[in-house]
């Protein structure tokens, strides 16, 4: 079975985020990138599937600081093929990213595409559904574990309120991973170093980006303090009386 895992880096929230002078984007000079947590789970889930039933795992991402390290780490975990897309990605959005991945996936013909269900910088929607649309494949999101049986997969999807649904999907399919069946594993540095000597990262140049369908950000800003809340103190009756008075005052009663 061929499993493809397209992933992306997102701004690391450990660093303070600043808005650039245009007022509509992050200042990239202080930005540090880190793997999208959900994508990390997607890689782990792919490795777990491989360990359980065999297969070939391809991890792909666009070039940026730390991309090589991440790909080698994935190889140390058990990924077989590492693809780094090269080009100018400074203006990229998820629509364009989905196009880039879709081109590659059409060529790769995987049985399963696992990707993080969301990322904290998904301004124009998550990558998974966009990818499924472009590839004409079924999509299930918020997946927390799956088993593959022949040409179909039984996936567990989490709903709020603690409900879990088991859904049968015909393969090939795109799955948005909420959580792998176990937390992403730790890889010893010695293993990563070893892999660096043996694993190859395939570089794939990308000519242009198709940004259509994306959103245009008009203003990006830090959360602003709203009007201050008023704390009501005293006994229950007293507070209730005050509440009624306030509701009347503002006309909701």
């Amino acid at each position: 079975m061929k499993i493809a895992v397209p992933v992306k880096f997102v701004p690391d929230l450990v660093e303070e985020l600043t808005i650039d002078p245009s007022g509509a984007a992050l200042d990239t000079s202080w930005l540090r990138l880190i793997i999208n947590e959900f994508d990390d789970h997607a890689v782990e889930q792919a490795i777990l599937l491989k360990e359980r039933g065999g297969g070939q795992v391809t991890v792909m991402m666009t070039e940026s600081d730390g991309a090589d390290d991440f790909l080698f780490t994935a190889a140390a975990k058990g990924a077989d093929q590492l693809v780094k897309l090269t080009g100018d990605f400074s203006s990229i959005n998820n629509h364009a990213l989905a196009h880039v991945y879709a081109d590659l996936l059409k060529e790769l013909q995987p049985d399963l595409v696992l990707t993080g269900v969301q990322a904290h910088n998904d301004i124009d929607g998550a990558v998974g559904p966009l990818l499924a649309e472009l590839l004409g494949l079924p999509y299930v999101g918020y997946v927390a574990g799956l088993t593959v049986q022949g040409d179909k997969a039984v996936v567990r999807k989490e709903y709020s309120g603690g409900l879990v649904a088991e859904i049968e999907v015909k393969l090939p399919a795109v799955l948005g991973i909420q959580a792998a069946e176990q937390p992403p594993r730790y890889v010893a540095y010695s293993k990563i170093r070893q892999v660096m000597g043996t694993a190859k990262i395939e570089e794939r140049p990308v000519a242009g980006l198709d940004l259509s369908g994306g959103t245009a950000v008009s203003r990006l800003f830090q959360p602003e303090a709203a009007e201050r809340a008023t704390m009501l103190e005293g006994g229950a009756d007293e507070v209730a009386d005050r509440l009624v008075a306030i509701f009347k005052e503002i006309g909701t009663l």
Partner: protein
Amino acid sequence: MPIRETFWNIPHWAEITQYVLALLTAIVFLYGILRHVLRWRKGKPEKRFDRLGGRLWSFIVQVFGQRRTLDEAYPGIMHFTIFWGMLVLAIGTALATVDWDVTHLFFGFQFLTGWVYIIFELTLDILGLLVIVGLGMAIYRRYASRPARLQNFPAKALARDDAYVLIMLTLITISGYLTEGLRLAVTQPEWAVWSPIGNVIAAAFLSIGDPTNQALHLVIWAFHILTAFGVLAFLPFTKLFHIFSVPLNIFFRSMKPAGALPAANMEGGMGVKEWKQFTWKQLLDFDSCTRCGRCQDVCPAYASAQILSPRNMMIKLDAHLWDKNGHSLHGEVIAADELWACTTCRACVQVCPAFIDHISTFVDMRRHLVDQGRMDKMLQDALANVGRYGNSFGQSDRMRAKWTQGIQPPVPDARREPVEYLWFVGDYASYNATLTEITRMTAAVFQKAGLNFGILYDGERNSGNDVRRVGEEGLFEMLAEKNSQVLSKVQFQTIVTTDPHTYNTLKNEYKWDGNRPNILHYAELLDQLICAGRLKFSKKLGYKVTYHDPCYLGRYNDVYDAPRRVIEATGCQVIEMPRCRERAFCCGAGGGRIWMEEKDIKERPSESRIREAVNLEGVNTFVVACPKDATMYRDAVKTTGNESRLAVKDLIELVHAAL
């Protein structure tokens, strides 16, 4: 002329039988020894032939002087008497054999005659008594006073071995005396008074008279010979084998600094997965354990939760070497929880009379767990943070020097200007919000002393001491490389740090390309500054304080006096806790424990330590010299409800207050 007729009253056939038995004994004994030696040789190579002079000296002091064994009075004296008694009796027997079977047989003369013989008899007679006294103490201790550390766990079968050794040694000694007594009773030589104990026994037998005494003599002699040969032949198969393994283990002990951990095995994955990946010296360690349990008594992990007993670890590992059932080392023999429980405080290594290095074994096994990614979530996050941000707090490396904000004049950046003292601040002192006040105070003291110092700002990373002890060797190497790279571009003369963990790895484990700079703990630096008159105090604080020795400063690096001198210079009086200096009790944070989840803790080591301090008459201040200690003990003072009775203060707080 005083002389003993060798083989008096022994028929010729018995004499011949004895020699045949001796030969058989030698064969079984040598086979037993060979079995052990071949087992050790299955281990990985390790060089232990450096500094032969030092090795020989420690061999003499520790084996013949029983130096470390004597650290504990009762078991020390008990073992000393048995050891020296048995050793002299064995030498005496050997001399008698040479006298009869070499010099007499081949050269026609005997040297055990006249006054030499008198001294020989007197010495053996008295030392035999010493053995009896020692054995009596041992029997009383094992079966009457029964200290907890001599329990039979983890293998009940070991109780048989313990009993066998005591019974057999007692039988040999008593039958030896009886043989002598009966011989003296029959022959009644005029020099019998020189065998005082044998003579007393002889007096008791006199009334029985010959030939009963002669017959009895033969029977008891035969019994004596059989038990003695039996014990000798099977010595390598019982715990008496330590007579052989422990002296070897002492001779081959590490002569490197205590703080330099051996590098990781990288063949077939990092660390030790199966026992043959241990070095021969580690296998010798396991084979040398006499189950005395001193390590268990001082182990903070054992005291707090009984998850880990270094003694039981050694027993299990030794049994595993001989196990034919194919149990796996990890999981079946040693549980991961046991390995993670170790704080690497080194208390066990410091007290072990057999000089076993428990920690290198534990770390080697942890390395395998790390290689497999098997660790708890907290530890995994801490390591990932150290790898990514250079600190275990998961904060931006750019925030490392945030604590310096507002300090005037600003703390110099050592990467930009040459400094005399490079202050390697360390993670806890830099990032822990409750410690930055102490860190700023340290800077203030340095400034008042007119020290030309600087820091590396965001160029500094976690030094890797505890990362290494967790078992993450690759990450340690990366940290060491990155720190070394930054340091190689900085002009400085001396490194100073407040963190004993950082101090240890910089001093003992960084490579420095053979050109190690002077490295000081701030206690040492303050001590130097006070001695040189550069730091003058205007106040005498007059507190009664106690001082906690950090493991990585004391046991690992032998710095005990400098911090005490500094405390006294501030006008405080140091009242020692019962467990002080080499015996200081670990706070529980070392070896990466501070990054791990706590499991089933009965009493935290830090809480035990605070209770120890609270019991000291008149002491109201608990002085620490390690940032981790400051956080650990501030917590422990709260959780034990001793906030009003004991204040935890960093050494620098005393210095600052006395300026």
